[in-house]
C-alpha cells in the first residue's frame, strides 16, 4: 500500500470536510478518510492503474484550501472554474420512479413559472452563461416546456439542451416539433442499454421501444440526440460495446454517447459497497474490449474543462459503412487550467451534439479534400465521453473546485456534485 497524495474530502455521514488520502493498493486506488465522529471510510475510485492512464494523474492540485467547501456552497472565490453549462431544474415531477435517482425526483409539485425562468435565463446570460440544460425531474412533464425553451432563447441563450428520459418525445411528435420550433438545440437522452432487461432493472419499465421512437422523432426534426447511459455493475457494464454499436448504427441522428458511472446521491437503495462502483478506467477498458478495438483507449483524453479525473472524451467521425475516423488531438495537461477552458468546452459540446441542417447536396467521399472532410465532420461527428460524478464517499474537494457544470439553485450557482450530495 502506498500513499499517492493527501487530499480533502467529506464525511459521508455528516458531510464535514475532513482529511483524506489517495492510496494505491496493487493496481487500484482508494480514497481513505477518517471522521472523528463517524469513523473510517474507504472507497474504490480507480480500478487498474496502467501506463495508459498517466495523463489522468498529471494534474497538479492548486495550492490553498477551501475550508467551507462544499457546505456553504454557492460559487465563491475558492472555486477554480467558471460555468460551462448551467443546469436549470424546471420541475421535480417525473414519469418514472427509478430506484436510483440523483435528483430524488417524483416528489414536490412547486415549479418555477415561465416568467420566473425567463428572469433566471436573463440573469445567466448577463453573466455570459449562454448554455443552459433544462433538467428536473423530467422536464417533459411540463406541457409548457416549448414556452420555456422559447424564453431561454429570447433571454439570449445560444444553446438550450434538454435532459430527458425520452418517453414523451417518442410518444408525442407534435410536442417535439413545438420544442424544435421554439429553438431547442439538442436532447441528452437517458439510455441505459440495448435490451429491456436493463431498463426494467434501472427504471422499472421496458423502455427500449420508447427510446427508439424518440430517436426517430428527433431525427425527422434534425434534433441531435446524445445517449446517456448510467453504468451500473452487474446491470449494463457488459453492454458498453452494444450501446456504442447501437449509437453508431443510429448516427447521425445520434451524435454520441455520454457514459455516467453510477454515483450514489439523491435516492439509492443502500449505501454503496466497492463492488457497486464503476470507475473511469473500467469504462475505457470496456469501450475498447467490447468494440473489438474499434474504439481504443488511446483515442480518449481526460477532461480539460473539469478535473482530469472527472471525465474523458474522444472525438470521431463516422465514415460510410460504419468506419471510424479518430479526431481526438493529443492531450495537453496544461490546457486544464487555461482561463478560457470553460468557453472552449461550451463551444465544443454545442458543435458536436447539435445536428446541422442538411445542405441537400450529395456527399463526396474523398476526405483528403477539405470541403468533403468539413462536410462529413459536421454531419457525422460522433463524440464518446464520460463523467464520473462524485458522491459523499468519493468526493475530493480539489475535483469539486474545478467543476464547470453548475446548477442554478435560486440565487446561488452550485457545482453539480455539491448540489446533489447526500449524506447517509
Amino acid at each position, binding site marked *: 500500500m502506498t500513499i499517492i497524495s493527501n487530499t480533502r474530502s467529506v464525511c459521508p455521514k455528516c458531510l464535514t470536510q475532513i482529511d483524506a488520502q489517495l492510496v494505491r493498493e496493487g493496481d487500484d486506488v482508494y480514497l481513505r478518510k477518517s471522521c472523528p465522529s463517524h469513523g473510517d471510510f474507504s472507497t474504490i475510485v480507480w480500478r487498474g492503474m496502467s501506463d495508459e492512464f498517466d495523463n489522468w494523474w498529471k494534474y497538479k492540485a492548486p495550492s490553498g484550501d477551501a475550508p467551507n467547501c462544499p457546505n456553504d456552497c454557492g460559487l465563491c472565490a475558492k472555486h477554480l472554474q467558471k460555468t460551462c453549462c448551467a443546469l436549470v431544474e424546471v420541475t421535480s415531477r417525473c414519469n418514472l420512479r427509478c430506484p436510483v435517482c440523483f435528483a430524488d425526483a417524483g416528489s414536490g409539485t412547486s415549479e418555477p413559472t415561465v416568467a420566473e425562468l425567463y428572469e433566471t435565463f436573463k440573469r445567466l446570460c448577463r453573466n455570459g452563461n449562454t448554455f443552459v440544460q433544462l433538467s428536473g425531474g423530467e422536464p417533459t412533464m411540463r406541457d409548457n416546456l416549448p414556452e420555456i425553451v422559447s424564453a431561454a432563447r429570447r433571454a439570449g441563450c445560444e444553446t438550450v439542451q434538454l435532459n430527458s428520459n425520452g418517453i414523451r418525445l417518442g410518444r408525442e411528435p407534435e410536442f417535439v416539433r413545438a420544442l424544435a420550433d421554439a429553438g431547442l438545440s439538442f436532447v441528452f437522452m437517458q439510455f441505459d442499454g440495448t435490451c429491456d432487461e436493463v431498463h426494467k432493472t434501472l427504471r422499472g419499465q421496458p423502455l427500449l421501444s420508447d427510446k427508439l421512437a424518440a430517436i426517430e422523432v428527433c431525427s425527422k426534426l434534425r434534433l441531435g440526440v446524445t445517449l446517456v447511459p448510467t453504468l451500473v455493475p452487474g446491470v449494463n457494464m457488459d453492454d458498453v460495446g452494444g450501446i456504442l454499436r447501437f449509437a453508431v448504427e443510429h448516427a447521425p441522428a445520434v451524435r454520441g454517447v455520454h457514459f455516467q458511472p453510477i454515483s450514489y446521491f439523491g435516492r439509492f437503495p443502500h449505501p454503496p459497497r466497492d463492488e457497486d462502483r464503476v470507475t473511469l478506467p473500467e469504462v475505457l477498458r470496456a469501450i475498447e474490449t467490447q468494440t473489438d478495438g474499434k474504439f481504443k483507449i488511446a483515442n480518449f483524453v481526460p*477532461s*480539460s*474543462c473539469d478535473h482530469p479525473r472527472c471525465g474523458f472524451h474522444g472525438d470521431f467521425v463516422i465514415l460510410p459503412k460504419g468506419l471510424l475516423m479518430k479526431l481526438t488531438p493529443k492531450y*495537453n495537461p496544461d490546457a486544464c487550467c487555461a482561463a478560457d477552458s470553460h468557453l*472552449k468546452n461550451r463551444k465544443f*459540446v454545442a*458543435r458536436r451534439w447539435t445536428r446541422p441542417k442538411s445542405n441537400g447536396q450529395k456527399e463526396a467521399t*474523398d476526405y483528403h479534400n*477539405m470541403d468533403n472532410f468539413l462536410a462529413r465532420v*459536421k454531419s457525422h461527428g460522433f463524440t464518446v465521453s464520460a463523467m464520473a460524478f462524485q458522491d459523499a464517499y468519493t468526493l475530493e474537494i480539489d475535483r469539486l473546485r474545478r467543476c464547470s457544470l453548475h446548477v442554478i439553485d435560486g440565487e446561488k450557482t452550485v457545482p453539480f456534485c455539491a448540489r446533489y450530495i447526500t449524506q447517509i
Partner: protein
Amino acid sequence: MTALAQWKCARCDVPLELKKTEFEYMERSFSHAVPTCPKCGDVFIPPELAEGKMAEVEEQLEDK
C-alpha cells in the same frame, strides 16, 4: 481572391502555378490546389485559404 498571376517565387523568380498539393494540418493529411513554384516546389498558402477553410478545419478539430 488572391490573383495567382501576381505571385512569383522569391527564390526562383518564376510565376507560381496552381498545383494539387498534399499537406499535413492538425495531424491530418489533405490535398488541395495551392500556388506552387514549378522550379523549387515551394508553396504559397493564400490568405483566403488560411483564414477560410483551414481555419474552419482548425475550429472543427479544436479540442475542448
